[in-house]
């Protein structure tokens, strides 16, 4: 064992500098075992591949005779964690938009802002540049989703199974025309 004065000297010499590194966003890093960016990415990738290659979605677009217009509805979170579904929904939206297979219209939060701005334009903007009322694009499909989790705990171990399900529903018929599902199971040992 070291002499007490040496322990102190060692403590005095120890110094750690904070380090910050930028890393590849695709790198999987799990610290606590809770839902994290890697899970959101897995869900986004699975849902995008599923939707873009889905035969029923393509068939629906063909029958419609134009690109389907999608609006994002509610993603219900039934888990015990505060998970921001936007993290994977936005990735899905970007992939869908870039693929050119569907159009996306604003959901309620941003739509209300647009309507507010349009109302202001009626009073203050040059009449030739005023955005007209009644020209909004109506959506054909609404995207819904649900996240659930089941947790089993014993001593220092925890197993959590996250199930994320997304579905597109026809606005006129209430029929679901696409389902995507991603299951992520984690075992955490403390």
């Amino acid at each position: 064992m070291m002499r007490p004065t040496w322990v102190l000297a060692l403590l005095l010499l120890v110094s750690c500098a904070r380090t910050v590194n930028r890393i590849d966003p695709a790198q999987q890093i799990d610290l606590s075992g809770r839902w994290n960016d890697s899970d959101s990415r897995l869900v986004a990738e699975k849902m995008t591949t599923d939707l873009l290659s889905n035969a029923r979605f393509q068939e629906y677009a063909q029958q419609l005779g134009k690109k389907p217009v999608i609006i994002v509805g509610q993603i219900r979170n039934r888990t015990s964690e505060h998970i921001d579904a936007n993290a994977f929904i936005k990735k899905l939206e970007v992939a869908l938009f870039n693929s050119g297979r569907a159009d996306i219209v604003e959901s309620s939060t941003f739509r209300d802002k647009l309507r507010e701005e349009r109302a202001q334009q009626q009073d203050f903007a040059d009449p030739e540049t005023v955005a007209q009322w009644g020209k909004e694009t109506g959506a054909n499909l609404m995207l819904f989703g649900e996240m659930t989790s089941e947790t089993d705990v014993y001593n220092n171990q925890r197993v959590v199974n996250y199930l994320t399900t997304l579905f597109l529903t026809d606005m006129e018929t209430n029929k679901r025309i696409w389902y995507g599902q991603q299951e992520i199971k984690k075992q955490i040992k403390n």
Partner: protein
Amino acid sequence: MKSRAHFWILISAGLWVSCATYYQSNQAFNQEFEQGNLSNALSTLQADGREAKGKREFLYYVNNGLILSLMGKYDESNEYFEKAFLFGEDYRKNYLNEAASYLTNPMITTYKGEDHEHLMLLYYKAVNFLKMGRSEEALVECRRLNIRLQQFSDRYENENKFQRDAFIHVLMGIIYDHDKDYNNAFIAYRNAWEIYETDYERLFRTHAPEQLKLDLLRTATLSGLTEEFNSYKEKFNLPDYEYRSRDTGELIFFWHNGLSPIKTEWGINFVIDRRGDMVYFYNQELGISFPFSLQGYDDREKNSLNNLEFFRVALPRYLERPQYYHQGNLILPDTTYSLNLLEDVNQIAFKSLQQRMHLELSKALLRVALKKAVEHQIKQEDRTLGSVLGMINVITEKADTRNWQTLPHSIYYARVALPAGQTEVTLELTGPGSDVHRHQFTYQVAPGQVLFHTFSSLESRYVNFGY
């Protein structure tokens, strides 16, 4: 050798601090604050600019933040709370100070703040934002709280330890609820309910507030969680509950009752019992014994430690400032709402210290052992200097008595439906011997609007400081 001895004495003497506790060393400030003389308390606090960058930087920020919040200066208050938050984020151990503290006492290290204090500062900050109608910024604090709670629960694995804060979950629910994010509000309320039921009832005998039941059912309905709604309705035995949208406003009223405990100091006397290569620090009264291995030490050092027949170790302890008022009601023209207990900050402070007392005691013993070992080494070289150092060691031996002392003893709340327009509300506080104090408030609310109000009663019952 003499020069080395002088060095230790100079170090110790230089680091010598007064033997007053943190509370005693801020007598003027405490007196002004406890009497509700907030502007004087603030001036006293801010008069000593060294505090802002010293070892009590965290306490300086949170005390400023809290007083400014009480004075209704929410923006300024949040500037201080933000500094306190960033302090917590960037806090790093200063090993030089840590090492020096083993030769003197822990008061010379930077105070990093208790876990519950780091949560409480975000509570104040979030509520300040809500009062200013800045809900987006309150949501940021809500996310920060979530991260803090996760860090907090990961730190302790033992279920008998305080590791989950129900009140903070309720607060998160209130913030999400206000943002009309009913799904997240439901999750937060559900987590809070579970923690009250499992942890709080067992650890603190604190039951879940009645209001929480109604908030859980309401947010379950508004999020379309029918199964969960039915299950809780049955669990709460509220078969007739039905959510009805009302054309009223709402008031969320927080009552901060009394003042949180202060830290003082107590001492344990230990005797040395040496058996072979082990030294036992032993206290017969408390029946505690700490082994200390001497393997690897040379004979001279073994003898140094062996010669420590008797010594005193200083440890921190909390002293409660009992609440003056034991009940609070909000009286409207047609209804009376009783204020529900959300968080017993006093008990949480006691529990936090209690659960790390073993660590505190080990650190204190190591500190005294090191001080004594150095003292004996010097005594062998120069008896007089050794004795002087021994005296300094006795004087400087003290516990860390710092904590956030302007926090309330307990936090209560009520969610009150207010008819659109102007309403007179009476806050009725009941103290010992049915001593009732009433405060009148007038609220102006529009349909759907939510108002936030905090009321602090700083009165405490007699405190036996024992000095």
